């Protein structure tokens, strides 16, 4: 039952977007988000949208898959839209009882919704086209300068990749524990919210105990395989920027510059 949960879904592929260095993609997403928050006008939004559409088209990710990612955010999107619709001052369009819809409200709501949707779709494109391992490797490499201020970059990325590795194992384990507790008459389906939450205790306790035991064994196994922290460690797959990465980063820089210029001229 829990096996259907997908975390950080990844659609393998061989398109240009897939082949880009993960660092390029992470940087591009940052540039994209910054540009998105700077964009103020129809022209700059059109530019951003054109960029997103092109990227999605090249990646061959189905737009439907991207839209599906928006589903959990639907309530937030509607909430922001409604809030902006009524609470922006300006020229009134429609007015009833205490509510007034203004022209500015409509425009604000439209742009905000568009901004959230584009934000989510842009970041989803990153996780859809980059394997979790490449993502952690990229992050580790990008954060490397922070080592100078004693930030535990290697440890952090090691923890991330081990967490990713153990998600399916622990989900399987949870399934087994649920089955075992059901076999002893545990009831997870009836009662109010409080009762159901309480029914989770006999699942969580064995799960935690087993997770700690696993951690202990894993630590031994890692030591046996000569793990001694990040010092002097090499990598089998080294990240390297290719020509395509530079081209894409240049596009990113141009996009950001374009939005800043447009913003400056009040467009």
């Amino acid at each position, binding site marked *: 039952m829990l096996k259907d949960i997908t975390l950080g879904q990844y659609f393998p592929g061989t398109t240009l977007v897939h082949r880009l260095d993960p660092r390029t993609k992470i940087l591009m997403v940052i540039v994209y988000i910054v540009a998105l928050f700077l964009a103020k006008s129809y022209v700059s939004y059109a530019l951003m949208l054109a960029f997103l559409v092109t990227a999605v088209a090249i990646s061959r990710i189905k737009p439907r898959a991207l839209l599906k990612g928006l589903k959990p955010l639907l309530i937030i999107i509607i909430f922001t839209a409604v809030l902006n619709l009524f609470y922006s001052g300006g020229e009134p369009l429609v007015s009833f009882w205490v509510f007034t819809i203004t022209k500015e409200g409509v425009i604000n709501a439209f742009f905000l919704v568009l901004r959230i949707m584009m934000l989510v779709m842009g970041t989803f494109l990153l996780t859809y086209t980059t394997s979790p391992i490449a993502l952690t490797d990229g992050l580790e490499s990008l954060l490397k300068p922070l080592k100078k201020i004693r930030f535990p970059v290697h440890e952090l990325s090691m923890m991330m990749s081990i967490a990713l590795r153990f998600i399916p194992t622990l989900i399987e384990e949870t399934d087994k524990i649920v089955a075992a507790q059901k076999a002893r008459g545990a009831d997870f389906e009836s009662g109010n919210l409080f009762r159901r939450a309480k029914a989770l205790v006999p699942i969580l306790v064995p799960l935690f105990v087993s997770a700690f035991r696993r951690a202990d*064994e894993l630590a031994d196994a890692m030591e046996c395989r000569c793990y*001694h922290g990040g010092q002097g460690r*090499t990598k089998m797959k080294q990240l390297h920027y290719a020509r395509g990465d530079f081209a894409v980063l240049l596009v990113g820089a141009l996009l950001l510059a374009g939005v800043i210029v447009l913003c400056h001229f009040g467009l």
Partner: protein
Amino acid sequence: MSEAIAVKNLQYAYPSRSGEDSAWVFDGLNLSIEQGSFVAVLGRNGSGKSTLAKHFNAILLPSGGSVWVFGLDTTDEAQILEIRRTVGMVFQNPDNQMVANVVEEDIAFAPENLGVPSAEIRQRVDDALKTVGMYEYRTHAPHLLSGGQKQRIAIAGVIAMRPRCIVLDEPTAMLDPQGRKEVLDTIERLARENGITVILITHHMIEATRADRVIVMDERRILADGTAKQVFSQVELMRSAGLGVPNTTELLYALNQAGYHLPLDGLSVQECAQTLRNFLGEPGGNATCQ
């Protein structure tokens, strides 16, 4: 030096929480393992076999006495990586020894820790995968493999360090018969073809019969030490250690008890059948039974 592992007067006590004197696990244990040999350590739960194995690559350090691996003292802090690189270790649960969610990344883990250059890591990973016959699965996710396949990946993860000795702590305990066979065949091949010293810790006597030398442990002492034939023919001793003997030996022993004087060293089914034929006076009959 022809000794792979030398245990000299080993004393070990688990550290006690209260600081009081804790019970000795080992009190003066001696053992020597030849280079290139295939040794099985047999014993029931709590016989001390796993604790002993953890001394072979400095996961546990002796409280007294010493353990030498290929001429290195395990208490020598400066040599710890070299010791662990030389003596690889595989554990019971394959799930709890994998660090990455792609097979080849997992196998690359040990050479990466050792600071091996990238191109050579790739070579070592491919070699290790081919040795255990899992090359086609290099880009798979480990949790989608069978138990036997996972354990072979764990073995490959250790081989990638190019160790001179591999210690396997009950590697088949969690596997089905098919997985058990896969893993044992792999282990035997490592010992016979790759010249690696293999120490197989097990409580399964049939597995132990594959080895050149069987060491039986009970109550944290070495009870018997010799070839499988020598060890298993001591039926009473094996029973006192809470272990059985293979069915073939069991049969010959039962016949002996009933007054027939048969040698007890017919370990394989063929040998056992031959012993019986010889006894029944069928001269030189070829054992053709399965």
